[in-house]
């Protein structure tokens, strides 16, 4: 119990620190948001327009930075995230909701698939180390993971979408569709997400395999595994309950972290497949000095990572009794 309390304490302090950094960082950047908008239009708007925008956006605020800080803290806890500058006059919450479901769906699913597959492959490879399975699959997948993501994604796009026409060219669903809950629409979403998800899985799976396989091999040499074999337990039970359960701990922490980062989207995926997601939005917010949007996104990412780590801590405590006793 005190272990969990300590984790919660840590969570609160980190959250506050993150919130403060989140407030300060964007304000240390040079330039003004309205000027940044010029970039988006490649110089198609005039300084008069910029001036008009500055007034509209209220960026010439007279508040001092301390007032702004407390207002920011208050707004954060009441969920009032302000108005986006890049998407003026749309509220930040609405802008984030445009992209959040797609990021969660695509990157989240792909991360989970990569983790489960990678862990299983790593476990099996270690269980039968030196076998054909171990000799081929892990090295091949690890080598593929080392390829630059851009290359793999463009290659898949050129081959499967442009040449073979198996999958659509970009977007999250057919252009003229609106979001609804019909089977037809779900089918569209799946076929649009397939290639991006596939490329995320094959480029990230190597890491899971490597960690799992290595930890598993060490674990298999432990006395309690030998003991289990001596007791005549079924190999499946030994692999999953004795070796696997212990070997998965490092991977689990890594998984929690990467689940947290799902929120930040995957910029390269979104660019190559023109997929609506938070990664590109974050880039845009930074380029456009969109403080409100930037802060909301950083906040989301921070909170998601912290929560994911907290959950991983709880899970670790549950899987590994030693962490509980250590307190």
């Amino acid at each position, binding site marked *: 119990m005190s272990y969990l309390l300590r984790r919660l304490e840590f969570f609160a302090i980190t959250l506050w620190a993150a919130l403060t950094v989140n407030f300060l960082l964007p304000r240390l950047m040079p*330039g003004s948001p309205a000027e940044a908008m010029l970039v*988006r239009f490649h*110089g198609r708007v005039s300084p008069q327009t910029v001036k008009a925008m500055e007034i509209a956006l209220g960026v010439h605020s007279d508040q001092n930075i301390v007032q702004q800080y407390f207002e920011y803290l208050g707004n954060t806890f009441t969920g009032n995230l302000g108005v986006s500058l890049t998407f003026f006059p749309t509220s930040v919450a609405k802008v984030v909701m*445009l992209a959040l479901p797609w990021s969660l769906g695509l990157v989240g699913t792909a991360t989970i698939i990569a983790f489960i597959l990678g862990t299983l492959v790593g476990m099996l490879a270690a269980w039968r180390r030196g076998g054909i399975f171990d000799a081929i699959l892990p090295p091949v997948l690890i080598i593929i993971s080392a390829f630059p993501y851009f290359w793999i994604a463009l290659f898949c796009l050129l081959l499967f979408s442009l040449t073979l026409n198996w999958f659509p060219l970009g*977007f999250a669903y057919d252009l003229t569709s609106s979001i609804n809950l019909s089977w037809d629409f779900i089918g569209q979403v799946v076929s649009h997400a397939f290639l991006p998800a596939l490329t995320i899985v094959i480029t990230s799976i190597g890491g899971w395999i490597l960690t799992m396989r290595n930890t598993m091999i060490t674990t298999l040499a432990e006395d309690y595994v030998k003991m289990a074999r001596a007791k005549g337990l079924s190999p499946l039970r030994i692999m999953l309950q004795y070796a696997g359960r212990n070997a998965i701990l490092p991977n689990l922490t890594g998984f929690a972290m990467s689940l947290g980062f799902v929120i930040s989207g995957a910029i390269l995926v979104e660019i190559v497949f023109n997929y609506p997601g938070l990664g590109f939005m974050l880039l845009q917010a930074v380029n456009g000095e969109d403080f409100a949007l930037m802060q909301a996104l950083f906040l989301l990412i921070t909170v998601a990572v912290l929560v994911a780590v907290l959950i991983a801590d709880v899970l670790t405590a549950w899987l590994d009794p030693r962490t509980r006793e250590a307190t």
Partner: protein
Amino acid sequence: MRRNRFLAAMAALVVLASACGTSSGGNAQAKVGGTLTIDNESGGLWSCAFNPFNGSVTGLSVGIFYEPLVYDNLLTDKKTNWLASGYEWSPDNKTLTFTARSGVKWSDGQDFSADDVVYTFNLIKQHPELDLQAVWSVLSSVTKSGTDKVVMTFANSAVPYFFPIADQVSIVPQHIWSALKDPVGDSIANPIGTGPFTLGQCTPQNITYTRNANYWQHGLPYLQTVNYPAFTDNDPANQFLAAGQAQWGGQYIPSIDTYYVGKDRAHNHYWFPPIDNIDLWFNTTKAPLDNKAVRQAFAFGVDRNQASQKGESGYEPPGNQTGVLSPTFDSWIDQGAASKYGYKFDVSKATSLLQSAGFTKNSSGVMQDSAGHKLSFNVITIAGYTDWDATLQVVADSLKQAGIQVKVQDLSSNDYFDKLFSGKFDLAYGSLNTQPGPSPYYELRNTMDSATTAAIGQTASGDYGRYKNPAVDALFDQFGATTDSNKQHDLIKQIQAVMLEDVPVVPVTEGVAWYEWSTKDFAGWPTQQDPYAAPAPWNLPDMEVVLIHLYKTS
């Protein structure tokens, strides 16, 4: 034949007859239909806001929903009455009277009237944040006169402001907008306009525009549906276009002949008409850049042809020292004066100019004056604009031969614009950030007229180099006071003479309107032979004019 179509814009049937002459014949209804897809990198998802006075979303509503009073072709300065059925300048050019067109309806069925025009202009007066063209910097009043006249008065003669006022201000419906609590912050999710299309559906990744069957130009538009997908980056947008899934493109495509045209040689085309200059700006307040001879040496020392070829793959043509775009505004160029100065890449001419100004080459080949001040400058540019970096490499290499050292400084865009507008630079590379206009006046004025500049440290709307010449300022004022085309041409000639003599900037290349189109399923496109509108989907309100010309052929 098509070139004259616009004279007949009011009589759509006449337009139709002439257009049909080239195809199959038939009537208006026969050609209605088809779905066109626009392909233009927007850099973000759509937020489905359609406020024509919100600078970040104008491209989605101006023209297509909200129309101008007079359409003024950016490339040819040909004026076509639009929501105004006529206009007239007073003899002193201080009063401009528009006649509101009758028979125009808003897309909710209400009648358009002069009241809407008066309301719109007073709305942007009341809310300066909506006045994107700063038209109230010259307007004194906008009032209604009689039943259908709108009278605009100016403090001074303001003939060139016709373009921003008549072509660039979108007219909105008074009966809708006067009920809005906050016209600045309202996203206008359900736009009501007079334009040729109405909003079909908007999702974050695509906007569907639907044909307005009651459009005042009867029989138009031909297209039933227009899709406008949101592309966050150039690459996917280019793939989409090359795969034939979109028909109208508006962005840079590398190796366009193989990548785009090569995919379908019979149907895929491109045309990049120049619309502004990309200049090397001098900070004319700093020695030795305040010395005319040094600036002239730059004009001889920059290899513009190589800059265009190597930096911009030849898609953006080299600039010329008159500052007048070629070929767009060829009729304005004073060829005699241009050849008298004969600015071309000429190292020995640049060197001799510098030598007669008292500079000598030091041991490392850099020119310096008697006090030992070297001709060594930083040029600011935007990090990530790789074509500009390549261009500046050519500029630096060619100037080095004349003994001028130029170091490229890549800045973040915010930092760059801040320094550019406030004049905190030696040399800057870039174009004006003001709207180009339908004659060379607009760009030249914003480049040279000291009325557009500001003190160092303050934001200037033009003349970033802080060039000051009362004689040239007076020429711009005279241009503003005349509607006589001959006189205007004469004044631009005199201004070119100053440009050639004083070299306030060196136009290195010409920025273009990126425009790609496919004739596979649609016809009626603007072309070099028939430039009835500026052709990029982001040229506003020209986009509307292109859309009502397009029709399906298969």
